């Protein structure tokens, strides 16, 4: 199949001569050749995006959250553009788990794409049944448990807003999933203390955390003087929410540095992705930016690789959580700054060949 991206020119790393970076990573037991995934609900089941780039080149496709039964979703209008973002109020429209497995997952498997299956339910029992259905899926690597979709009738259904509800769902999925399947809990930023929710999920058996889901928002149309969305409220996504997402990843990584985080929220460029990596994300997902440019995931992957190479990282894994390091001692050597690196044991060392000479220092 010919890939149909014309006129974008060579990828950055092909023009500039940058050293290789080992981009491999993992989300608990799920090993990935690179850390860029799609975000649930922004890539359907991969087939549409495969028209624009080879989806097997990504770390994995995270599918749109699937429920037990077919679901129509909410009425239209379902979206409104907002500054550097959008509101959506889809309401988990989907074909139900049986049709999904038969049609969408079968296609992904034939295509050879690594896959994270996102599941959503209205009760602990529904999540349990979904996990049980997925036990029989061969080669399943990871499940993302969407406990944080804001587009439900009853805010009480947003399990991720309450530690006990979040833990109950995660425990049910973890208990009913095949051993070796990584269970990721998807968290909502609409909470007072996201670290407390993260703790509840980890204690309940989550192998990793996906963060963040959309923020609950609302737009009122000044023409009609009514809510712009038929569902009244919707989930805010896009670059507008990136600082909130980076903060959430940073806080949770600080508290649980050994728990892998799939970071997302407004990533549009490799530099955006780098923020999440430095905050502590073992991998990142691209969401709303796909609507703006369907090629975003592969572009972000190339840009992130270059950004890491430019900063002297030989391995992606070394950059994860790098923003949490101790402050560097004040330089007194007159303009030569050394780039400290994590050693293999997580300790500090200084890599001499990565030293950067500041121009001012050289001249002065």
């Amino acid at each position, binding site marked *: 199949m010919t890939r*149909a*991206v*014309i*006129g*974008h020119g060579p990828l950055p790393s092909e023009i500039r001569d940058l050293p290789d970076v080992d981009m491999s990573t993992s989300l608990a037991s799920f090993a990935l050749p690179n850390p860029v995934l799609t975000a649930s*609900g*922004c*890539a*359907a089941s991969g087939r*549409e*995006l495969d*028209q*624009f780039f080879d989806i097997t080149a990504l770390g994995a496709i995270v599918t*749109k959250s699937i429920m037990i*039964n*077919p*679901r*129509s*979703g*909410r*009425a*239209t*209008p*379902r*979206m409104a*553009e907002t*500054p*550097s*973002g*959008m509101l*959506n109020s*889809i*309401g988990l*429209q*989907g074909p*139900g788990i049986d049709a999904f497995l038969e049609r969408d997952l079968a296609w992904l498997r034939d295509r050879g794409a690594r896959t994270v299956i996102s599941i959503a339910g209205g009760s602990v029992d529904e999540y349990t049944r979904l996990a049980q259905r997925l036990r029989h899926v061969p080669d399943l690597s990871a499940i993302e448990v969407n406990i944080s979709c804001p587009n439900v*009738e009853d805010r009480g259904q947003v399990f991720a807003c309450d530690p006990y509800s979040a833990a109950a769902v995660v425990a049910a999925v973890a208990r009913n999933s095949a051993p070796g399947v990584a269970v990721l809990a998807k968290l909502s930023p609409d909470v007072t203390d996201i670290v407390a929710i993260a703790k509840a999920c980890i204690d309940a058996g989550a192998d990793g955390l996906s963060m963040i889901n959309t923020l609950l928002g609302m737009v009122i149309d000044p023409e009609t003087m009514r809510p712009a969305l*038929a*569902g*009244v409220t919707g989930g805010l996504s*896009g*670059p*507008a929410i990136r600082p909130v997402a980076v903060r959430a990843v940073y806080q949770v990584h600080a508290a649980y540095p050994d728990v892998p985080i799939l970071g997302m929220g407004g990533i549009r460029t490799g530099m955006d992705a780098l923020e999440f990596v430095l905050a502590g994300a073992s991998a990142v997902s691209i969401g*709303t*930016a*796909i*609507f*703006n*440019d*369907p*090629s975003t995931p592969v572009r972000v992957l190339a840009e992130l690789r270059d950004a890491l190479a430019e900063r002297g990282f030989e391995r992606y894994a070394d950059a994860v959580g790098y923003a949490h390091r101790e402050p560097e001692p004040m330089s007194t050597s007159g303009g030569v700054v050394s780039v400290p690196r994590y050693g293999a044991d997580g300790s500090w060392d200084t890599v001499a060949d990565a030293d950067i000479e500041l121009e001012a220092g050289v001249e002065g």
Partner: protein
Amino acid sequence: MPVQIRGEVLSLRRAGSYHVLTLTAPGLPELTRPGHFVALSVGGEHTGMMLRRAFSIHRVQSRGVYGGTLDVVFAVHGKGTAWLAERHRHDVIDIVGPLGRPFALPREPVSCVLVAGGYGSAPMFMLADALRERGCRVDVVLGASTEDKLFGVLDAKRMAATLTIATEDGSVGKRGRVTDILPGVMESVDADVIYACGPMGMLAAVAQLAEERGVHSQCAVEEAMACGIGVCMTCVLPVVDERGTTRMVRSCVEGPVFRGDRVRWADVGTIPADCLGAPVGGHR
């Protein structure tokens, strides 16, 4: 299969209340069929406007000095289209297309009436060419609120067996709406197929007129879209499938052209209670 290309602005001209934008689009014309659309990014590289704007393809040209070119017609509705209206020659715009399901064409040389409201006529000229190549008779009905909101009157006059116009203020043609004059045209040309593009209300009325007379209709809908490529699920409307089941289908990939008798026009904007996956007790 769509392509993603960086098009260069060749020209931007006014046509009544509308703008006609011509972009270089190498590789796109060969793939385009009447009824396809494109999704253009707006606002430039660092914009806060994250959503593409969808436009039906007015014309394409595969040969010529510029390789392939693409024409779209738009009205300034908001910030995105205002940005487009300020483009200059050589500005670059990212194009994704051709997208969607085009108009179905008849195998036999039948009598076709093309109905459009406002700049809904944009895709109708390529369609008329394709129909005439198949030996079909083409009659055109155009309508708008006022004369400057009609698009393509001269082109329509040139290619159609007859052209009938209705404006709500009576500034040109008959005073009224296209649906007031359509039954007369259908009868006089013994129409077999109606092709329609325009606002939802017009499409609903056209589909009903066609169905009442046992005439096949093909309607190109306008729904708000975020992605245009089938991943975001915002542009859905209730459509009945072959087995009689109503589903919320994406107008970007399963449309924008639908059989008029398959769309539940009165229920657009709602989730009908008998729709597949509708919540028990209704849904807002």
